[in-house]
């Protein structure tokens, strides 16, 4: 005799913690299916690879944002740090004529230092992350404008080769930036799943008080998370400058919102403590496929992207509420 509950448990229901990620995956599959059914060219695998080529920088930024949101914080400065990185590298390469191998580590260091500073203020002075990173956003944008108000084109050979070279396999190709972005995703996934830092990140997001009482290094982890986000923003900025081959203070306006949207759509709980970098990867792909669909359609204007992203954000936040409400 088997009771109903036993039968139910035998049907392999997906673990509830994977539910948001699975929802994103099915949404992605659905959108891709709709696109492939309506437009013949959409089914081409290169379309998917183009999504990565066009959104590699966003992916890196969103990975950093995932760390921050997992601890229950938020980082509004990422878009500005991206812009600052493009501007700084462009001006150092072009106006100062510094070599690429000096500029590259320097801009990554600047981004990490900004993140480190914000993390310190957030932790030691106990100010809401939202307002601190807001100030960081002003600061980075302001620094961009003090470097210059117009767009600076980059013609450094290293940058140009990164922008133009293609890694080919068969008929398909990706840019080196895509490889960098995917490596970042893999490293982040490894760090979150298998290292002490990753465990601490989840623990602080789950309950900061008990994490502190358990003797976990809350201060170090919190600051590390914002430093990672700063580093990822700077790396995203470098990738964006590869993509655009220019530095401009108005690059990446509103990217913080895209990054947050990607993380949320990817199933990371905004209250912290639950989520996966893989989900963020799917979230970025959802955003990219929406853009591609709207481009393929041709009748819809670009601002529909924003409206659709807003609607998706709403649906996924609602889903989060339902899931967390059921847990209690």
């Amino acid at each position: 005799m088997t009771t109903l509950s036993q039968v139910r448990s035998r049907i392999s229901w997906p673990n509830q913690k994977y539910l948001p990620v699975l929802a994103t995956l099915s949404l992605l599959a659905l959108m891709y299916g709709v696109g492939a059914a309506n437009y013949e060219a959409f089914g081409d695998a290169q379309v998917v690879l183009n999504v990565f080529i066009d959104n590699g920088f966003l992916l890196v930024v969103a990975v950093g944002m995932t760390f921050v949101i997992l601890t229950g914080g938020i980082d509004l400065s990422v878009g500005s740090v991206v812009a600052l990185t493009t501007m700084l590298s462009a001006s150092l390469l072009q106006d100062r004529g510094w070599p690429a191998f000096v500029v590259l580590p320097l801009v990554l260091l600047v981004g990490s230092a900004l993140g480190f500073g914000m993390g310190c203020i957030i932790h030691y002075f106990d100010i809401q992350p939202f307002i601190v990173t807001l100030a960081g956003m002003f600061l980075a944008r302001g620094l961009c404008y003090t470097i210059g108000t117009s767009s600076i084109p980059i013609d450094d050979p290293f940058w140009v080769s990164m922008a133009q070279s293609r890694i080919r396999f068969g008929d398909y190709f990706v840019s080196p930036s895509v490889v960098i972005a995917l490596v970042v995703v893999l490293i982040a996934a490894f760090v979150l799943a298998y290292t002490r830092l990753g465990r601490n990140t989840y623990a602080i997001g789950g309950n900061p008080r008990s994490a502190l009482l358990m003797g976990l290094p809350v201060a170090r982890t919190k600051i590390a998370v914002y430093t990672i986000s700063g580093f990822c923003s700077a790396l995203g900025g470098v990738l964006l400058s590869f993509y655009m081959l220019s530095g401009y203070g108005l690059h990446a306006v509103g990217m913080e919102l895209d990054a947050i949207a990607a993380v949320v759509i990817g199933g990371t709980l905004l209250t912290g403590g639950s989520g996966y970098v893989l989900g963020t990867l799917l979230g970025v792909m959802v955003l990219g496929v929406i853009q591609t669909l709207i481009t393929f359609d041709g009748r819809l204007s670009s601002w529909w992207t924003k409206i659709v992203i807003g609607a998706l954000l709403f649906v996924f936040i609602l889903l989060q509420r339902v899931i967390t409400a059921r847990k209690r």
Partner: protein
Amino acid sequence: MTTITRLAKYRLFWPVAILVVLLLSNLIFTPSFFKIEVRDGHLYGSLIDILRFGAPLILVALGMTLVIATGGIDLSVGSVVAICGALACWRISEQGDQNSVGGVLVAVVMALGLALLLGLWNGFLVAGIGIQPIIATLILMVAGRGLAQLITDGQIITINSSPYKEIGAGYLLTFPVPVLIAIVVIVVSVLLTRRTALGMLVESVGGNAEASRLAGIRSRRIKLMAYVFAALCAGIAGLMISSNVSSADGNNAGLWYELDAILAVVIGGTLLTGGRFSIGGTVIGALIIQTLTTTIYTIGVPPETTLLVKALVVTIVCLVQSPSFREKVFKGRRQRPPTPTAPTSDAPTKVEVPA
């Protein structure tokens, strides 16, 4: 000395002091800064300009004050500014006679009605479903820009309507109309919050929403009202801005207004954690920001540095407000009276490094 220390304890002392210092510093660069004259029956002068251009910010910050007082935040005000300006301009550009007063009134009512709806949406998400305010209003902040561009069809709508122009650039009895509108809204909200129990209810909800619910306050309704009020204020500001330039730009109207508004509220002494709020402080905070912008333009410093200055101001104000910062920096100074110079030189560097 004692009067100064007594004054310093007054809540609005520091905001007012900053404003006065900013205004006075303008005298060095433009001696005629405080000159106000009547030309063609209109008031003219730098001070009037600050008030006139600061009016939309005052309104948006006013709405933001109440939202922050309930413990929330509204990131969507900039988008609401753009949407309302776009809708009003679109309606006016559609009608045959752009100068008809009735048509303009219809457009204004439509735009404010839409603002009301947007506020209800935000309030519903926060109070009804219980989503964190930052995220709930983020949805409208992202989608709102798209909506505004949808209304304007991606173009900048230019209109030529003299009645509509009155809202943002007109004069009534020698006073600029936007300033008068701002004063009316300020007076109404002060009366509503300080002469009725409403203000106290808002503060109690912000202090502890759960406790006030148990005490019998309908905290959800209070929160909903705060978001609706914020959206309405943003709507009026949107009308002013679009009317002042006679055009609606879905992309750039009200861009980063939410940040300026939050900054104004914080400078005015309202705590971001909710609870006690100060409408007077917010008005002064908004004026400080507008004066800062005007000063930067008149002195001839590149306007790009405005953002840097704002970043520094936000950081310093937040640090000073933060209890743990005060404890760490100011208490340290009191405990070590023999070497008072070392910690004081410590404090400013601590403020500036991470900004």
